[in-house]
């Protein structure tokens, strides 16, 4: 056992917390699920290896560090991974400062807070690198198996990217604190994290639409224009790609750079992080903003009161609103595609139909979770003199209203370009929204709204059912534009998916 309050003692404490947190997240906090979880992890790894064979297997032997096209593709893949790691790191750093779970205890104890926060930063870096290594392992393993040991450098590059992402996240969080102060940083950092995660992939799609008229990122990366415009093969830009492709000196440089970046950020910022943690603790003590004073009560039905309450709570919670609407970032490329097709008189908007339906299903799932499972005063609502069916109907209407608000501009624009596709899209959106809401209703649990980002952990089945139903309705809508027969078949499959989810959902609780 290590000596209390030493670096290794804190490191052991942090690792134990991180492990238990992960385990609780994966098992939804229920005991006895460790073995099924282990079996599921192995199964997922096998499936991912099989997927990796089909995705990268053919490139393993041919890829070369002197081929610009290969360097572009590998670098783009690395950048995409890095963007996601950086996004996760910024979110974790923010949570480390604002989550009060044990910070009050640590800050009030006679230990050097700087030391504790340094360990916390390193733990976050390790967890991010570990997660990225686990996700990229199947691809690297397949490349090693089919292309030789030179691909092992991939592990080193992923590790270095994890360290660099954590280092940049620390610097970025510190910058936000200094610029915005503790009250605004939490919200802005969450938004920044989401934007970082989405920007690269959306940027590629937008570039593909503008240059090639397609949403395919692969087509853009493989285009002759990009390859021709890329720097020479000996440029430093390609260092991570060269390291991944087996250049040992490049690998050493990349790994050293990652380690130096993280070490420097820990030395420079851990003391400031302690100050930020203290400042963040004071945020809760600041009185809440005054709401606009209304003149008086309005006579409303219970259903309207419930709908109005849902919309008010969402509107007044910038963090929740940003988390919910962040999913809409992915609608930017289809919106651009729609605008471009509209301007050029082409039929590119056909690809929009499934994208809109899928996005509506995902957004509805989040909103329905908030309305149904994230009810802050469930006992108040359950003890009100209203039939349970009416409560649920009002909540569904609240979700539908929000979805209508978001997707109406798309449908109206499509209506001008192609009424048929507008009708199909609208029908698909209604079906996907209704299905996602129904799934959330069947699998409802009582949770805090602040746990929105971790809502998937309460029921894996619900998560998959919601995702598959959105995909199925998107496919149905897409098929409707080409073949009514196939669309009907897909629609039946979508309904069967829902029926299956309903059949295995937990028994309804009496009160709600």
């Amino acid at each position, binding site marked *: 056992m290590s000596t209390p309050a030493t670096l290794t003692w804190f490191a052991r404490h942090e690792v134990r917390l991180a492990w238990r947190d992960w385990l609780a997240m994966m098992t939804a906090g229920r005991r006895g699920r460790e073995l099924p979880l282990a079996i599921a992890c192995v199964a997922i790894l096998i499936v991912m290896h099989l997927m990796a064979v089909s995705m990268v297997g053919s490139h393993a032997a041919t890829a070369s560090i002197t081929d610009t096209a290969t360097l572009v593709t590998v670098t783009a893949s690395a950048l995409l991974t890095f963007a996601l790691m950086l996004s996760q790191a910024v979110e974790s750093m923010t949570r480390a400062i604002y989550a009060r779970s044990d910070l009050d205890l640590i800050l009030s104890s006679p230990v050097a807070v700087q030391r504790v926060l340094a360990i916390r930063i390193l733990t976050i870096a390790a967890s991010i690198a570990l997660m990225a290594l686990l996700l990229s392992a199947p691809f690297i393993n397949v490349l090693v198996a089919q292309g030789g040991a030179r691909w092992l450098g991939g592990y080193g590059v992923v590790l270095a990217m994890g360290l660099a992402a954590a280092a940049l996240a620390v610097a970025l969080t510190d910058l936000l604190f200094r610029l915005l102060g503790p009250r605004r940083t939490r919200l802005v950092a969450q938004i920044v994290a989401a934007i970082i995660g989405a920007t690269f992939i959306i940027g590629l799609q937008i570039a593909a639409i503008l240059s090639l008229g397609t949403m395919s990122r692969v087509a853009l990366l493989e285009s002759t224009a990009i390859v021709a415009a890329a720097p020479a093969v000996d440029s430093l830009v390609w260092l991570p790609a060269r390291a991944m492709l087996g250049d040992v000196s490049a690998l050493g440089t990349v790994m050293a750079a990652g380690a130096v970046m993280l070490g420097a950020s820990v030395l420079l910022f851990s003391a400031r992080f302690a100050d930020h943690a203290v400042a963040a603790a004071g945020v*809760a*003590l*600041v*009185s*809440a*903003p*005054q*709401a606009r*004073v*209304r003149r*008086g*009560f*309005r*006579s*409303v*039905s*219970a259903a*309207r*009161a*419930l709908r*109005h*309450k849902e919309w*008010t*709570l969402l509107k*007044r*919670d910038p963090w929740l609103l940003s988390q919910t609407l962040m999913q809409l970032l992915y609608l930017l490329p289809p919106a651009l595609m729609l605008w471009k097709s509209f301007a050029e008189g082409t039929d590119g908007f056909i690809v929009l139909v499934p994208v809109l339906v899928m996005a509506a299903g995902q957004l509805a799932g989040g909103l329905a979770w908030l309305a149904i499972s994230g009810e*802050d*005063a*469930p*006992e*108040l*609502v*359950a*003890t*009100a*003199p*209203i*039939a349970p069916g009416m409560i649920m109907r009002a909540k569904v209407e609240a979700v539908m209203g929000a979805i209508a608000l978001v997707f109406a501009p798309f449908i109206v624009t499509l209506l001008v370009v192609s009424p048929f596709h507008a009708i199909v899209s609208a029908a698909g959106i209604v079906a996907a929204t209704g299905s996602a809401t129904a799934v959330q209703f069947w699998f409802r649990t009582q949770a805090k709204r602040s746990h929105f980002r971790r809502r998937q952990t309460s029921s894996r089945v619900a998560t998959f059912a919601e995702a598959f139903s959105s995909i199925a309705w998107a496919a149905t809508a897409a098929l409707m534009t080409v073949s009514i027969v196939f669309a009907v078949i897909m629609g039946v499959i979508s309904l069967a998916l829902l029926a299956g989810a309903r059949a295995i959902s937990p028994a309804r609780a*009496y*009160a709600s």
Partner: protein
Amino acid sequence: MREYPSALDIRALCKRFDRPAVDHLDLTVKAGEFYTLLGPNGAGKTTTLRMVVGLLRPDAGSISVFGADALADPVAAKQMIAWLSDEPMIYDKLTPFEYLEFVAGLWGIEAGLAEARARELIGWLGLEAHAHERCEGFSKGMRQKVALAGALVHEPKLIILDEPLTGLDAASARLVKNVLIERTRAGAAVIMTTHILEVAERMADRIGVIAGGRLIAEGTLDELRRQAGKTGTSLEDTFLTLVAERAAAA
């Protein structure tokens, strides 16, 4: 003593989880009565009250609220009931004023009447200065006051409170007690669980003692003392004697 109609009538109520939580419980509370339910942890107090307000379905038995069958017609029964738990559940992003408007909407109270009651309650509970602030920065005591105002805004005839004084400072606790006594004078029935025996001793018209899911003693403080065979003792001594006798008998 004046005779009142029955506000709550529970007959042979049963609820079982992994063991019987409520076991053939009979309980009657009259209108205008302040009834305190005492019992050790896990005795079945909260389970009983949650069944009355419709948060749990009983395995067997009947519940009648001012003559309305709470199991057959829960909406009619809920119209007359208010429920306040020890952990006030309010909306952080709403102000007390908006919260009360929402509750009034749920209970279908006419806007003018609801607003007048809300203003009266806000003043009564000393919340005027915070009436238009969001509840997110409120202390536990203030949250409990907001929840209490929400429970009273629809003028319930049966007020059920589970440990309502937990975490309140002395001034707030006295305020809540005064509000509840005022309501019983207006004809409402109050049923309250508490571990603060001094409160039960001073406020309750009648006290019920639950242990093992059954009502083991009931009556005024003097009647309980007689049942325990300990005249002139405190409620604490009486309560502990009754519970110990029950444990020995079990």
